[in-house]
């Protein structure tokens, strides 16, 4: 079943919006420190700040006198006001960053198949974050706390599970029991411990999870949080008065955005809306999954080509490849792809020197066949001369077919420049680059996504290592590497990509004209001969 049209339109809209925001942020921060790319790791930073500041605040909190103890923390405990503020602002940052992270995964279609677990566990993490936020606000026991507690009680009382209305605990007959504040504090501490488990689950399908942003961004974030905590410390509302109607109060929109609306409608409506919203989010993996006939297929291993070198096993960003014993008597291991874990990124194809692994139609051999056809079809200009530069474009990069206008729209790649498409920069086999240069291209520019925004996690990183740092399957020494360049630019950054293209051309002008080979024979490494040969 194809994704519903409104959903597909929403995804496109979110993607284009994020692309533009990314582009602006890249201009200021560069892709390494772009906080929008680091939204997931910023959530972890915020959680760490909450943990550290929360432990300090816990020392002074008293369940027998919640408001008074928070007041004492704010006014008397050393640094209490600032640490409380940092705790609150970090909690808000966590919600904002989690929203950006979720939107990015949704827009990029990184939410179905093997990534379903990450999506669903991410939703669980957000839910737990909200439970933490709710209990945290109630702990203060000021006006806002009473509003949240009373509304929570009203919603729970609408469920047929309690024998007596919970709302009576806040009726004013007596102060709320200490047991309530104890339970609240217990949840506020226990839920974050549960979040650690959920976080582990969230990244469990990723081979090399990145949990923290680059050091500069990490400490800048902490520094800015501390600075605003000192400059704009949070204040306290009046204490909760059980026999007063709620007056004007402060509201944290990150955690209480629902409150003004929810208080105006029956509890059943709130539950129905929450359930509908929750169900829609849970169903995203199924709604965004492409139809079966267009679903990218998982990688397969050609046992005859596999030399057991383990490079694909090392490079796979999703731990989808295992090395298993062979049953054909050869004295080395065989790569084996687990289809349930493979997202079909094709990074294994780029890592395999003998070209024995990769998604159907996208392994190294398939790419060589495609590039031969591409040269015959697209690389010859009208006068028969070879073009100066050939662009190899990752589908999601500035020059890629997934960019606005298919990468060739206004401001995109010039129509005269031939473009060889790959699904991901990490899928590109270095032999394709070698083939293009030997065929006479003066230069090959690989257009890749910014590494922190690779839809397949590590494609641009492995690409650079393979082209310039001799990582298997490396670009051979016989290729003049001055004629090869990469540019990292996202879908809304054709200008930056074109600037890199212009600079590359200028550099190529200083080199001698290339000497095209006519009958190119690629030396396929480790190729077997005799009856075991592939073709």
């Amino acid at each position, binding site marked *: 079943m194809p994704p519903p049209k409104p959903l597909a339109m929403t995804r496109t809209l979110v993607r284009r919006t994020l692309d533009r925001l990314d582009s602006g942020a*890249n*201009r*200021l*921060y*560069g892709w*390494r*420190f772009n*906080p929008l790319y680091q939204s997931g790791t910023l959530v972890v930073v915020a959680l760490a700040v909450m943990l550290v500041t929360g432990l300090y605040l816990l020392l002074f909190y008293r369940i027998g006198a919640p408001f008074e103890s928070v007041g004492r923390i704010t006014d008397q405990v050393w640094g209490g006001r600032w640490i409380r503020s940092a705790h*609150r*602002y970090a909690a*808000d*940052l966590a919600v*904002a960053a989690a929203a950006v992270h979720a939107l990015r995964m949704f827009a990029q279609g990184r939410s179905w198949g093997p990534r379903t677990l990450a999506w669903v566990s991410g939703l669980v993490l957000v839910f737990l974050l909200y439970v933490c936020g709710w209990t945290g606000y109630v702990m203060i026991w000021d006006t806002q706390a009473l509003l949240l507690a009373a509304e929570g009680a009203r919603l729970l009382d609408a469920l047929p599970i309690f*024998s*007596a*209305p919970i709302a*009576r605990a806040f*009726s*004013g*007959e007596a102060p709320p029991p200490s047991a309530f504040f104890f339970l609240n504090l217990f949840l506020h501490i226990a839920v974050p411990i549960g979040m650690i488990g959920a976080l582990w689950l969230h990244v469990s399908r990723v081979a090399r999870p990145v949990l923290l942003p680059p050091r*500069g961004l990490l400490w*800048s974030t902490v520094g*800015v*949080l501390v600075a*605003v905590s000192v400059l*704009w410390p*949070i*204040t306290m509302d009046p204490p909760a008065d*059980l*026999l*007063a*109607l*709620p*007056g*004007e*109060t*402060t*509201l*944290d*929109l*990150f955690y209480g955005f629902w409150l*003004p609306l929810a*208080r*105006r409608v029956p509890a059943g409506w709130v539950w129905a809306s929450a359930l509908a919203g929750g169900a829609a989010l849970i169903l995203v993996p199924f709604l965004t999954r492409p139809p079966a006939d267009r679903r990218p297929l998982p990688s397969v291993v050609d046992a005859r080509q596999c030399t057991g070198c383990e490079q694909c096993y090392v490079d796979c960003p999703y731990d989808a490849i295992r090395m298993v014993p062979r049953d054909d008597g050869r004295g080395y291991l065989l790569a084996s792809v687990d289809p349930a874990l493979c997202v079909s990124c094709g990074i294994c194809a780029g890592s395999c020197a003998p070209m024995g692994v990769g998604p159907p139609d996208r392994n190294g051999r398939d790419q060589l066949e495609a590039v031969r056809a591409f040269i015959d079809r697209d690389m010859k200009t009208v006068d028969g001369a070879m073009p100066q530069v050939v662009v190899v474009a990752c589908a999601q990069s500035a020059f890629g077919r997934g960019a606005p206008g298919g990468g060739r729209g206004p401001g995109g790649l010039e129509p005269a420049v031939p473009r060889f498409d790959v699904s991901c920069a990490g899928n590109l086999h270095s032999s394709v680059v070698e083939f293009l240069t030997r065929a006479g291209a003066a230069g090959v*520019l690989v257009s890749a996504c*910014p590494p922190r925004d690779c839809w397949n996690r590590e494609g641009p990183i492995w690409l650079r290592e393979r082209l*310039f740092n001799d990582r298997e399957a490396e670009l051979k020494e016989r290729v003049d*590497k*001055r004629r*090869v*360049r*990469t*540019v*990292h630019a996202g879908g809304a*950054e054709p200008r*930056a*990509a074109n*600037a890199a293209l212009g*600079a*590359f051309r200028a550099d190529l002008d200083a080199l001698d004209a290339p000497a095209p080979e006519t009958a190119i024979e690629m030396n396929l490494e480790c190729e077997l001969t005799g009856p075991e040969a592939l073709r």
Partner: protein
Amino acid sequence: MSAEAYPAVPRPLGAWFLGILIVLAIVAFSRVSWAPDEAVTGVAQLRLSWRFQAPTVQQCRPPRPEELTGVPTHMRPTQICEGGPVPFQLTVSLDDVELVSGPVAFTGERALSVYETFPVEPGEHRLSVAFIPVPFEMDESGEDPPAWRLDRTVSFEEGRIRLVTLGADGLSVVEGG
């Protein structure tokens, strides 16, 4: 060689400026001033809240022989009792306008819980509350279960809640509420 589109942090000043702006936006959204409807409309509230263990009325009789058939000796009851807690009805009127009137729901044999709220215009109002047992067919004990009534003028202040509760002295309006 790799051509980066940008240097590591191309515009540090702009980066800091935007970063601080974003954090300030977070600060602003985290402390939005909000007036709930009650604060805007300037109403008061009548709240009734109490918990009450209704007396249980039972009729007991010795078991009939056929009721003991097949029951092991050590499990044979000496009496079989039927009945349960007395149902109660709550009626609330304000200035002779009935706000609620009906039985208070039971949850098994647990104590009855009353929790009702009503918006009230500020000012003085005649409040009548009756929490009385519903006639119960098994009640042949001759003892009347307790019944409570409250009938008085109550002053409601804007933004305040008048709480009616049931204590040892019967129904009362919590002063200071």
